[in-house]
């Protein structure tokens, strides 16, 4: 079923190959790395031993110095997030967001399946730094193999003294619970995740107060993405200067770029921050035969799409922002001239309509009605004013929704209208075969 095209006939040039930086993905090549004994042979738990030799405040200062930023999409400085948790001796928590599910994202799943102990070791270090005695990993429900290997890793780590009471004789205690969700994209939003973890519907909370002071059970809580956490042991071993030496300005370290779509070898390519799409496509063996790049998402469906004119933009936090989009989760969905941006947006908006939690009107109604407008356009019944309606709907969503899900939904609509208005007009003006029969789908 899987195609083998690596290294393939079109081997990347040496200077492009040198963008590869296997750090977080390196152990994936060892099929047994999910077992403790193999993990230990591959530098496992050395970073925890090292970290426990420092005071928690020093670790926070170190993490700030490393320039490490969150890998879950927002890119928030990790050390600063750790510092926000009050050091007052009261109950507080670390919560790890492993609810990967945005269209395009596919890097956390292989990470958790192949290197679960890196997640557990990162949790132990982070919890020690913020003095949390309990940590929860909220794993997407469908990610069953990730969850079973994480549970096994917790069990093994506990038996070996890396978790539990008095970890490695440090006096530090930590319990870790792997908590499976039940199918809801919104639970990747950090406050919805907290509500879900408390046994409620996963709906976002009003902020302020922020989770740093009123998080899980209304106690101070640090929420980190699972990819952010898994990089921590590597950074502790390598040092702040080492991590910064790999990335670009304001974007320290490596990033797992997830390529999917019309390339010869889709997959996970861990490179230094700031690698361009052109370089990544070359690493992925080039575009599929007969396909020319038309549009791509730099970081999942909630980041504005970019086009062939952006292939040389360094994909790091600052440069993608300058190009008018968001680095997000570096989930690069690559679409060609055989893919229609209007159809793509219709399907994404259907996703957001399905996943909207229903709490706020702009998101619940806006996405519902945008699906209808898209279906009218795609069934050949669209009118020119439909484009204005879509823009209006986005205007009423962006910045007015209760959380980022609603904001994110508008990204594909506004960016596709900016770059590909003609594709919409082709359906409206009858120059393109309708995708469906208006009567069949009940377009209104």
């Amino acid at each position, binding site marked *: 079923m899987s195609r083998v095209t690596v290294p393939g006939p079109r081997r990347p040039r040496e200077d492009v190959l040198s963008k590869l930086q296997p750090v977080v993905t390196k152990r994936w090549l060892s099929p047994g790395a999910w077992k403790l004994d193999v993990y230990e042979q591959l530098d496992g738990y050395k970073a925890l031993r090292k970290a426990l030799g420092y005071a928690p405040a020093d670790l926070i200062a170190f993490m700030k110095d490393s320039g490490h930023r969150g890998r879950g999409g927002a890119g928030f400085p990790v050390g600063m997030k750790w510092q926000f948790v009050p050091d007052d001796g009261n109950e507080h928590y670390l919560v790890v967001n492993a609810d990967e599910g945005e269209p395009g994202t596919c890097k956390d799943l292989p990470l958790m399946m192949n290197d679960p102990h890196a997640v557990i070791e990162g949790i132990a270090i982070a919890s020690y730094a913020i003095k949390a005695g309990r940590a929860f990993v909220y794993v997407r429900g469908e990610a069953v193999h990730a969850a079973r290997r994480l549970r096994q890793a917790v069990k093994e780590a506990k038996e070996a003294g890396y978790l539990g009471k008095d970890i490695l004789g440090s006096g530090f205690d930590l319990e870790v619970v792997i908590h499976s969700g039940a199918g809801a994209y919104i639970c990747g939003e950090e406050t919805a995740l907290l509500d879900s973890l408390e046994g409620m519907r996963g709906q976002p909370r009003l902020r302020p107060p922020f989770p740093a002071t009123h998080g899980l059970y209304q106690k101070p809580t640090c929420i980190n993405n699972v990819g952010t956490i898994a990089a921590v042991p590597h950074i502790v071993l390598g040092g702040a200067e080492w991590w910064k030496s790999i990335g670009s300005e304001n974007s320290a370290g490596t990033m797992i770029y997830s390529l*999917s779509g019309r390339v010869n070898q889709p997959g996970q390519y861990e490179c230094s921050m700031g690698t361009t799409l052109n370089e990544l496509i070359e690493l992925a063996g080039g575009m599929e035969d007969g396909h020319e790049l038309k549009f791509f998402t730099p970081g999942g469906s909630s980041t504005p799409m970019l086009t062939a004119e952006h292939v040389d933009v360094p994909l790091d936090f600052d440069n993608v922002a300058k190009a008018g989009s968001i680095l997000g989760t570096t989930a690069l969905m690559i679409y060609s001239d055989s893919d229609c941006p209007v159809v793509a947006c219709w399907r994404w908006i259907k996703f957001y309509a399905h996943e909207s939690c229903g709490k706020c009107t702009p998101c619940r109604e806006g996405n519902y009605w945008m699906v209808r407008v898209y279906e009218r356009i795609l069934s050949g019944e669209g009118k020119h004013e439909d484009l204005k309606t879509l823009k209006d709907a986005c205007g009423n969503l962006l910045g007015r929704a209760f959380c980022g899900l609603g904001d994110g939904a508008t990204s594909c609509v506004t960016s596709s209208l900016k770059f590909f208005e003609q594709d919409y007009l082709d359906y409206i003006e009858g120059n393109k075969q309708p995708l469906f029969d208006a009567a069949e789908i009940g377009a209104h």
Partner: protein
Amino acid sequence: MSYPDTIREQAEAVVARYPEGRSRSALLPLLHLVQSHDGYVSDDGIAFCADVLGLTKAQVQAVSTFYTMYKREPAGDWLVSVCTNTLCQAKGGQKIFNALSDELDVGHDETTADGKVTLEHAECLAACDYAPVVTVNYEFFDDMDEAEALDLVRQLREGKRPIPTRGAPLCTLREMSVQLAGFEEERQSGLEGNAQGDATLAGARLAAEAGITAPAFDPGAPLVEKEEAK
């Protein structure tokens, strides 16, 4: 309400995972647990969760209906999910769904007449690098086409258990629900399974073959300057 003692004992173990006084956190795992017994979230299951956690049935139902993995009708042993989101659709996901729908004579979230297979279209399954993907009880069958998907469901209906591309050897949806409730995988073969594939390893393999490694470092170098260290 008639649940065996084993379910009650498991329910207690679930509640014990969460801090004192925070038992409601056990609700999602408990809903998976009752699904492991009934094959869906039944009225009895809702009453059971409410009873264990001291909630009202309305509170439990409000939660169970929010999440797609809790089934409202009895599901088959094999939950076949086809991703039809944008990337998988571009690569043929919708065609796969349509072919399976015709073959099984069921639509989305419906179960075959023999009660064996439940079909659903899924939103993104976080495997775009293996598009188009199908999962059976959430184990991956990667990079499928219509013929392979048809063969897959035919084998399931014949009582065979095809080997997933990634994930563990198949167990039934009820057995999987025990794991979703937070209990460990008891099969060594399940823990082993397979987590690798060409797309997963593409970058790491390319680097290894070209002899490329990240810059070297001194693992003993201090994290903070001596005068800063406490």
